[in-house]
């Protein structure tokens, strides 16, 4: 070890991360000067026993537990669980509920992507853009609050439908919110895609080739930015997505070429925000009248779920990619098995080809470009010539800002 350290390469371990994270991860970088020559990722540092807890609760209670797996994906986790249970119990979801589900799913996607865009701007030291994007996000949260009653934990999911309807008197407020989004989307697109600072840091950084994306099973916007046409909403339509008119978002839609770099990931996410606004408008237009839940009597629903047997998978395109919930019921009150596979899990291995050849100052933006939770850079230890130096998150952030300044000159 000491022999290796005395030569030009040295190691930087990053993580294990903040316990508040859904997917804790530890990196071990081998650095040659400023360049990353090797990356090792290890997983599984924090385990919250969510699945174990769920296996001791009935499906209605699990909906609210699943909502707390992730704060940003607080809609797609309970919904994927509900999809699995509906498949086991053969529950037919009313058509109006299918459309309402799409509206909430897309609203969450807008919220998540806009939040991510702000974080990405922050990672390259562009904080005025962070505040501008989060100003837009605030409006999306207001809309979410108006539709569901709360800003983050929406509690809108119910097995066999949704819990709250959108009535005609709510439509003007929704329209006003969507108009605000459309108006500001242009500004946001302009600020992100035409600005020199963003281009300097994002173009050519963290490249994930199409082959690697396919080989490493990347999901969501990360894989679409590499030109892989993969989207659960189109490949295996659920809810009312089969009836709606939309297509895969890949960066060549805008630029005509696919590079698979951070800039392409920004393009994909921004275009998906526009797509989501469009999908919500389509839903509001086409939504039929009718029931919003298959079985309004919850006691009756619970009694029927107690009897069902079988196993199923609930898949959904969460903002970060495909989320899978596997549920097995054996005629008891609580499920026999519940397994969650969140999209970030698939997007961890693509970090390795992305980070290779980049600089230490690129770690924050490249790692953030797959939209994980970024608390993992809370503490970095550099061991060089047996002298230990601790990199805090602030210090890494400072390095990143310095690189932006250097490039601007």
């Amino acid at each position, binding site marked *: 070890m000491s022999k290796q350290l005395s030569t030009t390469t040295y190691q930087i371990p990053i993580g294990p991360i903040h316990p508040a994270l859904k997917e804790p991860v530890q990196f071990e970088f081998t650095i040659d000067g400023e360049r990353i020559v090797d990356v090792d990722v290890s997983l599984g540092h924090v385990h919250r026993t969510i699945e174990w807890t769920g296996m001791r*609760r*009935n499906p*209605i*209670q*699990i*909906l*609210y*537990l699943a909502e*707390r797996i992730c704060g940003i994906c607080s809609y797609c986790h309970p919904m994927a669980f509900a999809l699995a249970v509906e498949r086991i119990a053969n529950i037919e979801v009313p058509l109006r509920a299918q459309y309402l589900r799409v509206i909430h799913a897309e609203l969450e996607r807008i919220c998540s992507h806009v939040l991510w865009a702000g974080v990405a701007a922050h990672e390259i030291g*562009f904080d*005025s*853009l962070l505040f*501008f994007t989060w*100003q837009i996000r*605030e409006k999306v949260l207001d809309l979410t*609050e*108006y539709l569901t*009653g*709360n800003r983050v*934990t929406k*509690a809108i999911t119910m097995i066999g439908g949704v*819990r*709250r309807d959108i009535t005609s008197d709510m439509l003007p407020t929704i329209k006003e919110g969507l108009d605000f989004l459309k108006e500001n989307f242009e*500004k946001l697109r*302009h*600020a992100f895609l*035409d*600005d*020199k*600072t963003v281009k300097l840091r994002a173009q050519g950084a963290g490249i994930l080739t199409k082959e690697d994306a396919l080989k490493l099973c990347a999901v969501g916007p990360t894989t679409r930015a590499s030109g892989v046409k993969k989207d659960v909403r189109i490949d295996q339509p659920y809810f009312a997505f089969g009836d709606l008119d939309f297509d895969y978002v890949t960066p060549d839609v805008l630029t005509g070429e696919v590079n698979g770099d951070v800039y392409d990931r920004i393009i994909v996410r921004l275009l998906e925000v526009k797509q989501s606004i469009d999908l919500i408008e389509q839903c509001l237009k086409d939504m039929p009248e009718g029931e919003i839940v298959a079985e309004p009597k*919850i*006691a009756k629903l*619970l009694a029927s779920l107690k009897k069902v047997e079988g196993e199923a998978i609930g898949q959904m395109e969460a903002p970060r990619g495909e989320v899978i919930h596997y549920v097995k019921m054996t005629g008891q009150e609580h499920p026999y098995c519940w397994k969650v596979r969140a999209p970030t899990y698939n997007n961890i291995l693509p970090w390795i080809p992305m980070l290779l050849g980049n600089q230490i100052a690129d770690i924050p933006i490249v790692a953030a470009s797959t939209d994980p939770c970024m608390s993992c850079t809370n503490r970095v230890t550099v061991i060089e010539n047996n002298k230990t130096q601790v990199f805090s998150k602030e210090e890494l952030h400072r390095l990143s800002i310095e690189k932006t300044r250097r490039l601007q000159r």
Partner: protein
Amino acid sequence: MRFAMIPTLMSQLFKKPHTNKFPAKYAPANTTQFLADVGAGKAKLIPPVEVPPKFRGKIQYDREKCIGCQLCIKVCPTDAIQFKPDQKKVKFLMARCCFCSQCNDVCPVNCIQMSDEFLLAEADKYAPSLIVE
């Protein structure tokens, strides 16, 4: 454009801050004293941002209506509801509540309602203000 954010930033200079300075413009040194002053009419309280329609706040419980069916206990995800067998009534521990409103939905006699009250901070999680019965 080289720096696309500049026009937006310039326009922000002429906008008012969006923050609602609840409960006062400057944070009071002693909140209890401040609230007492507000009660006596000596200080003015800046009201909080209005809650949305159908907001899920502190639970309101109509004791007389309750028939003691315990369905709410069965669906509560956080074990926040306790049964009092001698009276056949229930007790809500708001410190455990996750405000999902599921008990409100399942109640056959509609004796549970979600109010607009959201200022529930308390040093003791079993304080009387956090127990509804």
